[in-house]
């Protein structure tokens, strides 16, 4: 992996903007882990939904259908 897995600065900026608080040094890694878990579940649910709908691959519609539930599941 020549390039980093994700842009750390961007994640920090985003979270800082939303929380209006400073971030400790390595929090963004854990946050990204959390995000990765979220994405995993999102993709899983979306693929299930798209298969149920008879669509090929991941469709935007299935993601839209699924994302609210996933976001709710990941709510603190």
């Amino acid at each position: 992996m020549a390039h980093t897995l994700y842009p750390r600065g961007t994640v920090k900026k985003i979270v800082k903007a939303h929380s209006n608080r400073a971030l400790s040094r390595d929090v963004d890694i854990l946050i990204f882990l959390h995000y990765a878990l979220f994405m995993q579940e999102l993709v899983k649910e979306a693929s299930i939904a798209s298969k149920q709908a008879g669509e090929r691959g991941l469709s935007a519609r299935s993601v839209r259908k699924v994302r609210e539930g996933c976001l709710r599941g990941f709510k603190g």
Partner: protein
Amino acid sequence: MSESARKKQRVGSRTSEGAADNSGTIYADLQRLATAAPKPVTPFRRAVSVTPTPGSRPIRTPGTGRTPRGGPATRPTPIRRNAPTTPHAIRALRERANAARTPGRRRSGRTQRETPRDILRDLSRVLARDTRPVQPSPQEQQRRPRHSALDLPDVDDGPDPAVPRLSMPLEDMYDDDSFHEAPPRQSLLPNLPDDVDNGTIQSLEFGRRAISEDPRMMFTTRVSERFADINELGIDGEEYEVDGTFINRRRTLNPDELLEDVAEEDLDDTTTEIRALTGRRDGRPSDVDLGVFGEMDDDTEEPTFRFTIPPRMQAQARDGAREDTQERVQEMGAQIDGDEDDIQAGAGEDQEETAVIPGGDDDDDEGSFGITGWESEHDNADDADLQAYRGEVSAFDRSLQTQSPERRATKQRADRQRRALNISRFGHEYPSFPAATVKTLATGFAKSQGSKAKISKDTLAVLVQTSDFFFEQIGEDLAAYAQHGGRKVIEESDVIALMKRYVTVYIYCTDVYICPIRRLTLLS
């Protein structure tokens, strides 16, 4: 005896001759018996009655020779001797004997024809046949008219109340609305085709009250009401909330790039405008079951709206938006230094313009509405730019109107805003999560899921938007955890608490315990 027999025969012959027509029937025989038998018999009976009955019996039994003569009529004679007392009794006995001796004939002939039972049976059969079919036929007929009758009144009742109640007031209302609303639209339309929408949206946006902090607004609006408004406006929280909601809407409507896609913005604006229009119309008819009163109320209400608002409107909508942008820019920090001056200058110009306008509105009556302000604004210096905005950018973009001075100044700022278009609830700009990362993650997970790894553009856009939502949610939650911990810095413990929370939620969401355990192990 022989004489009597002869007489009988003669009489019988006479009667038979008289009743020759009936000769064939049983009636004829009976009539012969009735007419012929008594006359010769009565003297005979008397003689017999005088003589003791027991002596007579043995004599008669041998004297059965009569019976062959008389044929059927002679048979009753032995019964005579049994009860020869009175002629009535004798006749009754004869009739009984005949009835007893000739049962078959009578039953076969008379009884079936004449008995009332038979008649009644025939009647009953006929009536039963008739009645059975008759009963259902009238019932069906009754049912049919009942249904038809019920249906008809129902239909009549249904439409009668519904149609006049709904249609009449609605039509009246729309007509009235059209009367009231039409002139402003028409006045607006020739000037600026898109302005109608913008005007409605501005009226909606007025709630922002971005007037804050502008001295010129203070001067222009010295009225005590304005002070109250300004005091209200002074509260930063309200402004922020209003702006925040507004901004949030924009995000939701246009996820990332409002500036780039003008067409999408127009669509959104139209939708919002339609919503606003529909909302108004809905509100009016909802008031309306009593159409006239509702109309009256609307008439009274509308001018009040436009009275109070238009001065604020024009001042606020623009200046507010620009001020908002100014605030954002200030919060943004050092980036915008040079542009702020431009923005303030532009805002100042607009304020002056608006300052002139509200005075005119106050002088004018209802007729002026918000439109005068628009027109006056058009008269002002920036006509070309304003029209350009209105043509391109719709009312929602008023929040973006800061762009207009920016456009004047440089396009660099527009580019910069594209990058950091999103603005958080706290007024911080932030970039949307990079699509490349999302794509790599999603493709990896999709492969692991076994489905084809290809992700279309639409899906990727939705995923990026979803990830933005996710980070927004996470940021708020992490801030809440940190605040609960009394810290101003978000630490790892907060994130772990969040993830544990997710695990618990996950247990509720899905029946699988393995996944949360795995994640716990990952965390630990």
